[in-house]
């Protein structure tokens, strides 16, 4: 140990460039920024990255949307298929959300079976759709106990730079708003879905969404639990805890999750909820612009 300090003292010019320092001590580098109340990418602690929503980007899907939050890009495509209803709910269709984090979107993901993160995000979205009753599943019934619509909701992450849950949920909700399904006819066990002519209001229907939950996520940095809104990939990898607040258009909560990091005070959670209300309002106006 003594020799290293000696050599350091002997060469006072031994300094790092900022980018070397960032690679060697990512947390310390970050802490220096945070102490000045700003983040390395120039954002304030509670500001969000620019967000855009585009509808109907996939013509082969019944509904689709592409969402960008800073460097994170996700594409959600929804395909409606005629399926047999489940035995315990003969008059209800079903939703099958799935999030795919393939190696294309970041070098952090390996090819092979879905990563834990992809599965956790899929499960979180599934629970929000199901438990906050985003749409009446009875609307998806074609003929009771015979045929229903199954909506396959596939989210493909194209570029990953953190905050995948927010991006995925926005894309799912936007794609659900964009869904158009051709009106089917049921006749003695055969469901006919007419094809051919262009889709219009006459021959198709839209989904009747009861609420549109949107989420706002934060990470907790360091032992003093500094709150950072809309984390990017670098910020996610040096922090342990995250808080997500999912809220619908009437300001009702649909999901609150706080995982990891030390115990946080309830006033911090309140602060997150307040910030999420403002953010979800902003997101809704972005979604309505298109």
């Amino acid at each position: 140990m003594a020799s290293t300090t000696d050599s350091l003292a002997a060469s006072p010019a031994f300094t790092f460039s900022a980018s070397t320092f960032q690679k060697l001590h990512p947390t310390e580098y970050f802490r220096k920024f945070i102490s000045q109340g700003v983040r390395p990418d120039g954002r304030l602690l509670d500001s969000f990255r620019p967000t855009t929503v585009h509808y109907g980007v996939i013509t082969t899907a019944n509904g689709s949307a592409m969402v960008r939050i800073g460097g994170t890009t996700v594409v959600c495509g929804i395909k409606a298929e005629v399926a047999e209803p489940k035995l315990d709910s003969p008059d209800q269709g079903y939703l099958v959300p799935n999030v795919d984090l393939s190696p294309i979107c970041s070098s952090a993901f390996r090819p092979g079976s879905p990563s834990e993160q992809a599965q956790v995000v899929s499960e979180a979205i599934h629970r929000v759709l199901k438990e906050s009753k985003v749409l009446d599943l009875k609307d998806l019934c074609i003929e009771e106990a015979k045929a229903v619509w199954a909506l396959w909701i596939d989210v493909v992450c194209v570029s990953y730079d953190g905050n995948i849950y927010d991006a995925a949920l926005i894309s799912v909700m936007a794609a659900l708003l964009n869904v158009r399904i051709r009106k089917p006819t049921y006749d003695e066990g055969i469901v006919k879905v007419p094809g051919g002519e262009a889709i219009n209001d006459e021959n198709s229907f839209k989904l009747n969404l009861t609420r549109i939950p949107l989420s706002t996520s934060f990470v907790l940095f360091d032992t003093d639990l500094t709150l950072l809104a809309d984390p990017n990939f670098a910020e996610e990898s040096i922090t342990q805890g995250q808080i997500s607040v999912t809220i619908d258009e009437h300001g009702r909560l649909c999901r609150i999750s706080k995982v990891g990091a030390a115990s946080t005070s309830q006033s911090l959670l309140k602060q997150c909820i307040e910030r999420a209300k403002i953010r979800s309002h902003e997101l809704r106006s972005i979604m309505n612009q298109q």
Partner: protein
Amino acid sequence: MSRLDRTRTSAHQLRPFFSSQNLLNRSDGSAQFDFGGSSVLCSVVGPAEVKLRDEKLDKATIEVVARPLVGLPGVKDKALEQNIRESLEPLILSGLHPRTMLQIVIQTMKDDGCILSTAFNAVILALLDAGIPLKSILGSVTCMIDAQSSEILLDPTTEELSRARSTHVFVFDNKSSVQSEQGKMNVDTDDQEAGTSSLAAVLFSDSTGMFTEQEYFECAHFCFKASQAVHGFIRTAVQKKLEKEYQQTQA
């Protein structure tokens, strides 16, 4: 008002707890925890050798494996694993065992609602049994809001959960709850106890469904009060076990 399971009389009553430690003789620590009809068995192995790929230079790698009651592990089990692992990481003094692995296996034995809470409590008992150094002890309680009556029911059964408008899982550790008791004077609420809860720090929270902000914090309040009973129970369980071990060494 009586509850659907007919054994409880109050909405804020928990089901009887049960725990036993050191059930498995091949693991370093194990425990079973029951909330009425829900039961989770947990085993802890560690500090053990770590795979080169997972090795961390400054702390132990914590691995959590969840096994469902029936069938193969699915997406739900992955979510359970992540929730438990990330909540334990700040609690376990993993810096004491760098370059090792701590493996926690969770097996659901009986499912009658609140599996996540049951698993949290089983894990902490198993960690205590294995003698893993911890910063504090946690206690978890689930509650739900009834769709019709909007009443908060603690520790619901599967049957009750089917009528829920929202479900809330909370975990509180015993250290920050003590701090919050001390700080309750600063809060300007009429109800002293509500003041305590608004300060009770939350280690883990997972709520889904439809609920208001006020309902959320009410749930936190009731779960916090109930978690005190769980903390007490864990304390007694450890005390009894140590007494027994001490007697054995004396004999």
